[in-house]
């Protein structure tokens, strides 16, 4: 359990070789080993959605996967998605609509939203609410999040492209 195992994976576009204990979760590896603290852990049993990351393009709970299981996979975290501006329009819409308060659920919400819009570019409000059913938020009451995702779906359908999120003024 505590003997370190070598591990190769791609994280945010970079191929890494690192060591992990067999019992270490992917979430812990990302947070502790790689200092990617934008991936949060809220329940460590796969129900709150705070730890969602993209694994080979699909959302997974980083708390439910052992790090060694990610061998050979391509992982994208909130930091990587931000850097490549893949979710800049979602981030802008969340910001404008105040679709976050404490921000702890937000990276997971953005991952879910991105995956939803990839498979269903124009979801109804009910479909958005359904897609968010694995993402717990204690602060907002969800409506602003639904609004923000709905706005982005509409903008993407109209072909709008957002500037990089970090370049926007406050």
């Amino acid at each position: 359990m505590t003997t370190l195992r070598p591990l190769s994976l791609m994280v945010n576009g970079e191929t890494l070789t690192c060591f992990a204990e067999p019992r270490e979760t992917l979430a812990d590896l990302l947070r502790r080993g790689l200092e990617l603290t934008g991936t949060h852990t809220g329940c460590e049993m796969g129900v709150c959605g705070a730890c969602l990351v993209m694994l080979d393009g699909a959302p997974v709970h980083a708390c439910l996967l052992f790090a060694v299981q990610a061998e050979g996979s391509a992982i994208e975290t909130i930091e990587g998605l931000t850097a490549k501006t893949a979710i800049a329009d979602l981030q802008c819409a969340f910001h404008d609509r105040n679709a976050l308060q404490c921000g702890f659920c937000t990276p997971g919400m953005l991952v879910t939203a991105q995956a939803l819009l990839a498979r269903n570019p124009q979801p109804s409000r009910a479909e958005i609410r359904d897609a968010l059913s694995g993402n717990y938020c204690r602060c907002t009451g969800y409506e602003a999040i639904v609004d923000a995702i709905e706005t982005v779906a509409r903008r993407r359908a109209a072909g709008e492209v957002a500037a990089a999120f970090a370049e926007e003024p406050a």
Partner: protein
Amino acid sequence: MNAPLGALDRPNSYIGRSVSRPNAKRLLAGRGRYVTDLVLPRMLHAAFLRSPYAHARISAIDLSAAQAMPGVRLIATGADLAKLCKPWTGTLDHFRGMKSPPQFPLPLDEVLWAGQAVVAVVADTRAQAEDAVEAILIDFEELPPVVDVDAALEPDSDRAAAGLDDNLCFGLKLDSGDVDAAFAAAAYVVEEEFHFGRHTAVTLEPRAILADWDASEGRLTVHHATQTPYQFQDLYSRHYGIPEASVRVVAPDVGGSFGMKLHVYHEDMAVVGLSVLAGRPVKFVADRMESFISDIHARDHRVRARIALDAAGTILAMDVDDVTAIGAFSSYPRTSAVEGNQVVRLMGAPYRFRDYRAELSAVFQNKVQTSQYRAVGHPIACAVTERLVDMAAARAGLDPVAMREKNLIPDDAYPHASPTGYRFEALSHEKCLKRLTVMMDYERLRAEQAELRASGIHRGIGIASFVEISNPSPAFYGIGGARISAQDGAIVKVTPSGEVRCLISVTEQGQGTETIIGQIVADQLGLPRERVRVITGDTEVTPHGGATWACRGAGIGGETALQAARKLRENVLSLAATVLQAKTFELDMRDGVIVDLMTGAERISLAEIARIAYFRSDTLPPGTSAQLSVAHHYAPQGYPFAFTNGIQGCHVELDTETGFVHILKHWVVEDCGRIINPLLVDEQVRGGVVQGLGAAFFEECRYDGNGQLTNGSLADYLVPMACEMPDIEIGHVETLTADTALGAKGCGEAGTAAASAAALNAVNDALSPFRASIAQIPMTPTRLLRALGKI
């Protein structure tokens, strides 16, 4: 007040404008810095062995195997930490007769609830600390747990803790007017017994603390996910005997709090001592299972209540008995009695009646402590009152709206003293009710309900008026001897480049405190908002203040910022007048430029004034005092609390075969005085409503007869999720408080205060054709089917 006051109502004022939160951008980019993220050099990790029993004596502790485990640096017991840390007691002087056992970071010989931390292990990694916890051997001698509140109050009951004469923590009786005569003369009396389950905050970031004792300087730095850094600076200082000025508490980004993160937790106090013993930084983050068995729980009331009415449906009197179970200790430093106190004082608050009697019993038992959580006491008082008002309306043959029109305190009847001892400056119940019925299209909903009933679809409509406590003065805690500040402080300073920094004691947990403070400072100074930076959450940099609790950030923190900014503005204009050889009263600052007040002609920029003051004071006339930093404190004066009010409506559909309730829509009209940022206020209200709906339908800490929590995980404890929650429409009435220039009151508890009451009334409305009713929350499908007689 003259010229600057008008600025609040300028068309281009920042006050009253929806602007987004500058500090939210880093959270969206995954660059939040929560305590859970922090790593310090040589940092160690703590884990705790927890009691498997609700009540037991510790007979023997064997640490030998654990001490030999890999990575273990330190193991500490209650006795070890008691040598460093003075015990604490959760009582307040103004709650007469209140008692509670003394508390230590870790217990000395008796454990009082299942999950109580008993032994601390500090190791190089959290996993190693947890491994070592597994190797600790403790002999527990089981004692009978006190679980049931009625049994707890029997004279010969087992005691929840050694040394207690009985299990009554606090009792309170209120009696005003002639309640017996009013009930004797009543045309109708309606009564009910209500049950409110325990629930808990479930912040998505659990409790987290990182203590760093530096013996070389005698300094303690604690990074603490809390709302109230100053309160903890004071507590760590006094309980560990470290001078206050050598204690720094930093609250960085906090992943939700809602009142839960302002209480003293045994593990948190222990971690400070562990850092002292280890001589290294020690971190503890509660995992989710630990959160459920150690974060404060909330509510847990059984209320028997009745109201007396005359033949026309006028409420004459109210009589209430509230028994609330608080766990084995009263929490510290705010106690576990404030919730019950507010329950009995907020009962019937929106209504006109004069005769009132209440009895409160706060009872010890062997469960997790209950204490203040969002909307302390409000949801209980509101649900009891509003359900009884609906029952009375049915009895008097009145529609619930007509019943409220008849009995609410009229908007022109203020100031008003409640029979429970509160004084209301100005509320707007009638306006809010009128507004709500329009927003809901109430008549149409009633017509639709009747039509749908005919086809077997059972919808319910519920409304609930409420009063909310905000802007508390020292009457809340200070007079009870607690060192919890009711005032706040701010430092506002101009940088050499003509930007402004505001360091203020109110804190941010995502509600937007920093944003509204920035709006107020920018507005009052006459600066673009982008040039104001607000800094909070660090005792080393801001003045001492109460921080964020009980809805005081906007009302008290905002007024502090307003007054500080006005002072700085005077200083800037006075200096500008010296430089320009003009008169201060002829000048104004707009958009960062000092202008001629009358013509608006630009005279000199703030940046230029700052440059001269900081780098070329030699060019100023002798004796010029350039004061471009201002420190200012504000304590609420006038009314002891700024009460707010509002009303909520809930529309549900009940499946009478399954007991499932679909929440169709929810409405809120609330009056928080001056609205600084409508976007943020609306989202505070929505979030609050959803917490109230969670309590109404899902959330309950369920215990077995041995005092064991049986659903302590996020898979078993149900929280409201997006797919179950409705869209929530919000309207506002603005009745300013005249106690401040800003006129703002709180809005953070409004949503939670009445959402469960509106839902309870809505479900009962849906049940009414079946002559069925429910008086318990959460309203689970099982309980609803039982109410319907189906199981």
